[in-house]
Structures are given as structure tokens and as C-alpha cells.
């Protein structure tokens, strides 16, 4: 079986997110990192490969992103992926979720994976939807927010995080599964793996290589049009209720909540 893991380069969690006033978009110029949720997807792939319940021949990390997104791929292979694919093309800049999902699906069509794994959300856009879009294009079942994967008679028995408790779902492969961060504890890459990452094969593809229809990607091929993004307004100072008499304090809090129809 072959597993493709979709990964994304995102601004590092330690960098305060801000809107670039000149473009009204998220400022991505600072320190970057592999999307933390995707490290859980790679770990899930590695656990399937090392678990032995199903033979996994290859784990391939796939990303779409600018030139420096290659760093995310290096981290992905240092975490265990056997090779990586980098879809990079000026024509892809400005793609929305649907266009990105389409482009990634075209790359996956070439790879013909038995299983596609990805983090359930990205640390920057937090759309939660790429997995479903990719699955639709590939005509594969889609499972989201998965926190446990077991191999059972050649199928995958998964637990999905639901609002109350878990859904247990059995899915036939090939399938697209997005995972939550409760699924595992990702390993740290070893020094040897980091130093060896650049020696693992990396395919750099342009849109044409992947058979991507240029009209369906990029800003023009996207149906979402973005208005002006602005930073959220600074929080007000709030209301401080001094606790002199606890009964009175409780009454004040209840009244405050009641006024706003919160209770």
C-alpha cells in the first residue's frame, strides 16, 4: 500500500499572526514551520508502516506552495516519509480551497495512493475542508477529524471525534482521512534523519506536469473573492466585579449574563 500525506507550510506558531496592511492578507513572511496537524498525519502514516498490520511500501509527502515550502517537505521526510512531491507554479498563487484541493487531487492522481492522510486543519487558514475537496475529486470516501486508525480485514476502522464522544467508522481504501492532534504523539526527527532529508527524492512539479487546468486554479480560477481582512479590534478592558460580598457578586454576574441573554 502507498500512503500520500498532504502537508502545508504555515507561519510558525511562535510568530504572532498579523494582517499585512499593504496586501490585507495574512503576513507569511516570518519564520515558517510544517503545519503541526500534518506532523500527526505523517506520524499516523509511519505507525501504519511500522505497525505491520498492513504492508506499507511507501509514504510520500505532497505539498503545494511557494519555493520555500520545500522546507516543509524536508521536515516531512525527516519525520519518516520516503520521498516528497512539490507542486509549485506561479499560476497557482491565490488559489482558494476548492482550487487548491483540485490541484492537489491532480498530483494525487499521478501518485495513485491507497490512502491519503492530512491534518484536519492548517494552522493558518484553518479551513478544515481540503480533505473533503480532494476526496470528491478522487471519488474516494472522506473521513475527517479522525483520532484513531486500526487496520481490520484490509479496511480501516477509525474513530472520529464527534461533538459528544466518538463515531466509529469502517472505511474501505482507497480513502482520504484527515486526522486530529489527539491521534498520536509525533516523534522528533533525529539528527541523522534531518541530515539525510535532502538525499531523499523530491519531485518538483509545475501545473502542466500535473495536468492541471490553468483556468481552474490561481486567483482567477478561484470562486472565493476575498474582501478586506482586518485585525480583530483590540479587546476592551472588561468589567471587573470586586468580590466584597459573594452573594452579591454572584447576583451581579448572573445579571450581567442575563442582560446579554447568555443564560
Amino acid at each position: 500500500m502507498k500512503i500520500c500525506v498532504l502537508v502545508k507550510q504555515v507561519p510558525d506558531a511562535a510568530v504572532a499572526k498579523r494582517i499585512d496592511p499593504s496586501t490585507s492578507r495574512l503576513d507569511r513572511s516570518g519564520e515558517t514551520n510544517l503545519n503541526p496537524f500534518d506532523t500527526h498525519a505523517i506520524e499516523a502514516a509511519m505507525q501504519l508502516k511500522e505497525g505491520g498490520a498492513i504492508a506499507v511500501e511507501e509514504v510520500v509527502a505532497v505539498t503545494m506552495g511557494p519555493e520555500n515550502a520545500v522546507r516543509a517537505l524536508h521536515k516531512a521526510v525527516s519525520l519518516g516519509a520516503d520521498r516528497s512531491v512539490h507542486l509549485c507554479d506561479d499560476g497557482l498563487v491565490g488559489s482558494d480551497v476548492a482550487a487548491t484541493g483540485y490541484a492537489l487531487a491532480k498530483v494525487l492522481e499521478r501518485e495513485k495512493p491507497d490512502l491519503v492522510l492530512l491534518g484536519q486543519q492548517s494552522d493558518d487558514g484553518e479551513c478544515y475542508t481540503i480533505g473533503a475537496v480532494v476526496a470528491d475529486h478522487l471519488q474516494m470516501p472522506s473521513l475527517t477529524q479522525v483520532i484513531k486508525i486500526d487496520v481490520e480485514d484490509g479496511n480501516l476502522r477509525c474513530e472520529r471525534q464527534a461533538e459528544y464522544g466518538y463515531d466509529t467508522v469502517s472505511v474501505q481504501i482507497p480513502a482520504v482521512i484527515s486526522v486530529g492532534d489527539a491521534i498520536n504523539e509525533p516523534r522528533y526527527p533525529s539528527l541523522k534523519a534531518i541530515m539525510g532529508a535532502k538525499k531523499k527524492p523530491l519531485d518538483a512539479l509545475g501545473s502542466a506536469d500535473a495536468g492541471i487546468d490553468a483556468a481552474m486554479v490561481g486567483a482567477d480560477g478561484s470562486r472565493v473573492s476575498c474582501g478586506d481582512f482586518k485585525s480583530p479590534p483590540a479587546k476592551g478592558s472588561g468589567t471587573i466585579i470586586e468580590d466584597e460580598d459573594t452573594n452579591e457578586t454572584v447576583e451581579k454576574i448572573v445579571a450581567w449574563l442575563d442582560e446579554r441573554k447568555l443564560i
Partner: protein
Amino acid sequence: MNFDLSDDHRLIQKTVREFALGEISPIAEQLDREKQFPYEIIAKLGELGLMGIPFPAEYGGGGGDTLAYVLAVEELTRIDSSVAITLCAHTSLGTQPIYLFGNQEQKQRWLPDLCSGRKLGAFGLTEPEAGSDAGNVRTRARLLDEGEWAIDGAKQFITNAGTDISGLVAITAVTGEDPGAKNAKEISNIVIENGTPGYEQGEPYRKMGWHASDTRPLTFTDCRVPQENLLGQRGQGFKQFLQILDIGRIGVAAMGVGLAQGALDEALSYAKERKAFGKSISKFQLIQAKLADLSTEIEAARLLTYKAALLKDTGRSFTLTAAQAKLKTGRLAVRAAEEAVQIHGGYGYIEEYPVCRFYRDAKILTIGEGTDEVQQMVIAQALGA
């Protein structure tokens, strides 16, 4: 000039940062309080290949360079000095002599266990009357007719020699007379494995800081080791340890940078949170001046330290720069920790806050691996003064 780290170096830096935050930070205070040696952390660092960063893969090392080592040490010290010094003393001082001066057989025999972190290496140079004046060594090794060294003497302030996983110590010892030497002593380096009869590790010192690291006095009483445990040529010990200390200084400089940065991290985050007179204390100019000065000095000290690493990695002389980096960073670490405590006010004097531990851990950085005064001597000599 290129100030950008390579992709590999960035990933090493980031990985050690995440490791330090995820694995060490949650237990650093407890390890320090209970003076527990961090066995589990060292085992994990070993699995990640971080206990032998600058040594070749053929001996089980990480195959990294000095800069990679510096980045790792810096990121560890940013969170905890005890773990960092354990790795640092093991790598620069314990393993280095065997890698640099050992013959093929010695390297094959000792390096794989050391580089993997299964065993710890120690370096036994300092004696009650021979610290920076290491030529004044009193420990003696007599070569017996049966082809064994018989060692008698004492070492002190030795890191990593008395843990459950301590494997060996490389010591300097007087092996004969050398009329050509300044004090007529022939000095050699000899490896002594833990468990050798006559080699005893004393009780751990009650230190000001570095509480979770292992530091003890050692004694050798008619301790017999095979003749083959001699490292390199007999009589080369003085030159050898000077070379080891030069390299060690780069590691300790990285600790200074890391500790100062860790102190600034804590001070900045506290200053933004803590309110006084109706606003965050980070908005007061007197606090801002402290934070700004520290940040500036840390960046300067970091560049000096990275330069020392780069000089070594490109095969150039680094003695002067390493001494400068060690001098600059040790003093900076002490000042940064003090300012961080000051910014924390009374809370900085309470052990729950990491800056309290940083303050205790910092002072040794102006002493260990050559005092500030010795660095000044080395620097002045290099200037031709």
C-alpha cells in the same frame, strides 16, 4: 557574508527547541529541586542522535558540524542548563579526546556507546591545585613492567563521572619527567573506565546551580588500566587538553547565549503580563531599556559564538574567537539572569519561576572551562600584549 542558517541547521534548531519545550520544560523545575539526574531525557537525546552531534556517522555520531552542536546546546540551555551541561561536557570534553587523539581501535571500542548516549564520557583535568593552571597536575600514572598504568591522585569538579551510565573518564596525569617542559612534567591523557578497581567517585557536590547535573570529586588509588588506554602519544597531554578546552569553550559560549535568551524570554513574557500602576510593566521605559539592551547584547554574543563555530568548521584558527565568545557570553548570561530576576521583582526570588534557577545556573559560566580572567589572558596573548 551570509547570516542565514542552512535549512538543515534551521531544522536542527527547531527540533531541539521543540524537544526542550515539550520534554524538558515541564520537568526542569522538579529535576532541579530534587537534584535528579535526567536519565530519561539523556536517553531520548541519544535516540535523536544528539549525544554525538559533531562526530562521524561511522562511529555512531550525528555527522553534524560545530554550528549544529552550538544550535542544539543553545536551545537546550534556553530551557535548562543541567541538561545542556550534561550533553556539553559529554560531547566536547568526554567524547572529544577519544575522537581527536584515540587510535582506530580506541575509537571503535568507545565512540559508539558514547555517541549514542548509552554511556557518558567525562574529562578529568581539574585537581585541587590545578584548575586553569592545569600544567600543575599532581595525579601520577606509572607504567609498570607488566604493561599497565598504575594511577594515583585526585580530580575535582568532574561532570558526568558518577551517574549510572557513566562509561569512562579521560584524565590528565603525569607520566614522567620532561626537562623541556615548563615545570619538567611529562603529561599524558589516559582513559579509565568506570568500574575499574581503584577508581572511586566521591559524593556529588552541593552546588549553587546545575542541580540536575552530576559533578563529583574522583580519586585514583593504585588504579590499574592497560597500557593501551593511553590517548595519542605519551607526553602530548598538555597540548591535547588545550585543544580540547578551545573546542569546549565554543560549547560553553553557546550555553551563555542560550541562558541569556531564556532569561530574556521569561522576562519579556512576565513583563507583558504583569501590571503595575494600571498598565503592563513592559510599557515602562525603565523595563523596556533592560529588555532592549539584553536583546541587543544577546544578538551580538550569538553572532560571536556562531563565528567561532564557523571558524572551526572551516578549519581555521578559532582559539581567539572561542575565548572572546566564552568571555562575552558568560558575563552576559549572569547579567541577563540578574535583570530577568529584577524584572520579576519578588517573584524572581521564588523557585517556581524559572528565572530563579537561571540566576543560580548562570554564575558558573564565568568560571567553568576557564575563568573570565583566563579568557582575558588568552585573548591578550593573542593580541600580542
